[in-house]
């Protein structure tokens, strides 16, 4: 059953937003705070995301919670719409309008670094952001940040495991030719075995991620001493930046506790670079963040990160969809996490736009689309 868009026309998301965007309002602070603090239960059952919309005022929302009903009562009712932050537009525009110039800039930048030999031939892969891994990294950060804000108990065991892996790998690194650090085959086998026994298989993650080299955590190569494994230099740089922000703390437990906050800071740095017209820096920061996100298979990350954040990105990137009705997303995701709390974290991190549109305007727009 559809809530806002007709079941048979899900791709009207683009056209619907074009019809209602001029009537959309940015969500108010009081609405956002009320929703994130008062909403309970999973996304599908919340009274705020049902067909018929939610009350615009906090008083109206209070009544909805009390009566466990949606779309009824006095006052204005609205549908919430969310979309990828407009700050990403600069990246999409540059890739669309000047991909060869951007690629040239990235390759020139890499050419000046000691990573030139390792990353010199990535070609157009530089221009694709790995949104599903970016989404998972965001999902992991949301889980972590939500725990820090005492929204829920799930933390980010994956972040702890990733961090432990990178620390162990760093310890086994040896200096190779051209200053590139490697882990030899024997040490690598030990690492794989050690982590596999702890429910994490670095070998499998690497095999799968080889398709997009800028965001791949590890590069495998040959040397006169046999097969060797090196950290993606972008992951290494990201790791250094994270540690710098955490004042060089070594304890993975502590580090993992702040993983969410640190990840959002890293994303903010990348977004600031983009805002300043430094698309190359943005790309390298985001690729580094993705490459650093070693443990990629947690279900929590998938539900609240990959399937929420990355879907917004994919729709924006592939079809120019700027905002999607939240009730439809809430129904599709069916996550046990409170959608309102997740949206608040994403909104405060500057990763999404959040609007409201009156229900009657949305319904009118849909009937216009039906009559075309």
């Amino acid at each position, binding site marked *: 059953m559809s809530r806002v868009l007709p*079941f*048979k*026309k*899900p*791709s*009207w998301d*683009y*056209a619907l937003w074009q019809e209602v965007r001029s009537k959309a309002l940015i969500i108010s602070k009081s609405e956002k705070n009320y929703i994130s603090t008062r909403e309970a239960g999973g996304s599908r059952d919340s009274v705020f995301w049902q067909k018929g919309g939610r009350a615009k005022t906090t008083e109206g929302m209070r009544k909805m919670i009390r009566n466990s009903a949606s779309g009824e009562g006095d006052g204005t009712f609205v549908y919430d719409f969310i979309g990828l932050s407009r700050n990403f537009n600069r990246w999409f525009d540059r890739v669309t309008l000047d991909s060869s110039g951007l690629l040239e800039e990235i390759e020139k930048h890499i050419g000046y670094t000691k990573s030139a*030999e*390792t*990353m010199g*031939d*990535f070609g157009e892969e530089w221009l*694709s952001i*790995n*949104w*599903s891994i970016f989404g998972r990294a965001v999902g992991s950060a949301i889980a972590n940040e939500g725990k820090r804000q005492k929204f829920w108990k799930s933390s980010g065991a994956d972040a702890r495991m990733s961090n432990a892996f990178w620390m162990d790998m760093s310890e086994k690194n040896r200096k190779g030719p051209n200053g590139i650090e490697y882990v030899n*085959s024997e040490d690598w*086998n030990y690492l*794989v075995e050690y982590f*596999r*026994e702890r*429910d994490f*298989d670095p*070998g*499998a993650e690497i*095999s*799968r*991620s*080889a*398709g*997009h*080299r800028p*965001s*791949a955590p590890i*590069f*495998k*190569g*040959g*040397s*006169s001493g*046999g*097969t060797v494994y*090196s950290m993606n230099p972008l992951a290494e740089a990201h790791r250094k930046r994270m540690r710098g922000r955490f004042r060089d703390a070594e304890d993975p437990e502590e580090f993992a506790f702040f993983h969410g906050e640190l990840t959002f800071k890293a994303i903010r740095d990348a977004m600031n670079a983009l805002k300043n017209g430094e698309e190359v820096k943005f790309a390298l920061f985001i690729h580094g963040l993705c490459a650093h996100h070693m443990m990629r*298979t947690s*279900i929590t990350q*998938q539900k609240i990160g990959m*399937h929420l954040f*990355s*879907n917004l990105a*994919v*729709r924006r990137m*592939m*079809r120019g969809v700027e905002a999607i009705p939240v009730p439809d997303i809430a*129904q*599709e*995701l*069916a996550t046990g996490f409170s959608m309102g709390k997740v949206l608040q974290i994403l909104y405060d991190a500057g990763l999404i736009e959040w609007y409201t549109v009156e229900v009657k305007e949305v319904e009118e727009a849909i009937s216009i*689309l039906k009559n*075309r």
Partner: protein
Amino acid sequence: MPAQDLTDFAEYWSLSMFDENGKLRNPGGILEEGGVDYAKYLIPWCKGNSVSVDQTTLRHPRDLISMLVENYRSDIYRIDSMSRRRVLDHRCGVTFDDLVRMFGKPLGKGRRGVGTLSFDWVRIERILGQMLLFGDIAILSHSPGGPKDMQRGFRNTLHRGQSKIINNIRTRGSLANSWDEMEICRALEESRDTFGYVRLSEKKGWDLYIRDHYGAPSGVEGAVPGNMAGMSPPGRASTMPLPLHLVYAETMARAMSRDGNVWGKNQSLIRSEISDAVIDGNGVSLPLDDFYIIHSRNGATHMADYTLQRSIGDLAAAAFRLEEVPNSDPKSWVVHIDPDLIRWRENRRDRERVRDSP
């Protein structure tokens, strides 16, 4: 459905790895030089069977096959790095102690579940049993040979009970369910002192796949294709870039799930329906709304956008491309489907026809 995919895999593997005279092909992937054509069957099979599920549910089978592949790879590397010719030894396989280290002890101890058999071990036995039936693995041990062998230490020999184990599984008509039926694990336990181990079968072509997946590709100056110890630039694509062994492991895991529910079943159905819609339509694409609706009808609306771009960052996943329909109002799109996914479906339909024919 995964059971059928496993049977298909065995068929495609044989068709790909061996030439028309039944001889194993060469590493490097150059057809004119007797290399493997992965694009015909095995890559499409990978694209059709690579599902996205919480990987922890697939952990044990994947860990087991990863361990078999990784250990084999390490031992080939050891051999390729040495100037004198050496043979593979128990380090290329998995011993009983390796299994205990990875999956715990087979029988429960302590206050809870004393003497009860761990389901993980039943699953391991089933996977090994299936692989043994397909000829993917062999059970070996080191035993004293003649005087020459005694000087060198021990000799690799095929476990004398292997044929009997295969016959027992065939006679029983099912894989293991109890400790008594867990003949492979018991054989490994009983031959602990002589390094009893299971390893991937060289004859079946696993050595060839591992060389094509991990070794030097063709065209690298100074490197023999498939050699593991040669110089090869980091990040360079290999002859068979897709992690076929992982998809194989995951398909096996799906076929042997604990509660009988097949993991990733909806995704398989979605792929089949999408491919069928394309094959029965224009052969290359379908409307985006149909793409979404197929996902919705199979309870996976949230997966649709992810599927569209999953191939970025997952080599084994099918690639999709969106194209806007010119002058459409409201704006609409079509989705171009990965030809390998279509080929997977066509290959499968061909196999179904062969199976169904009298």
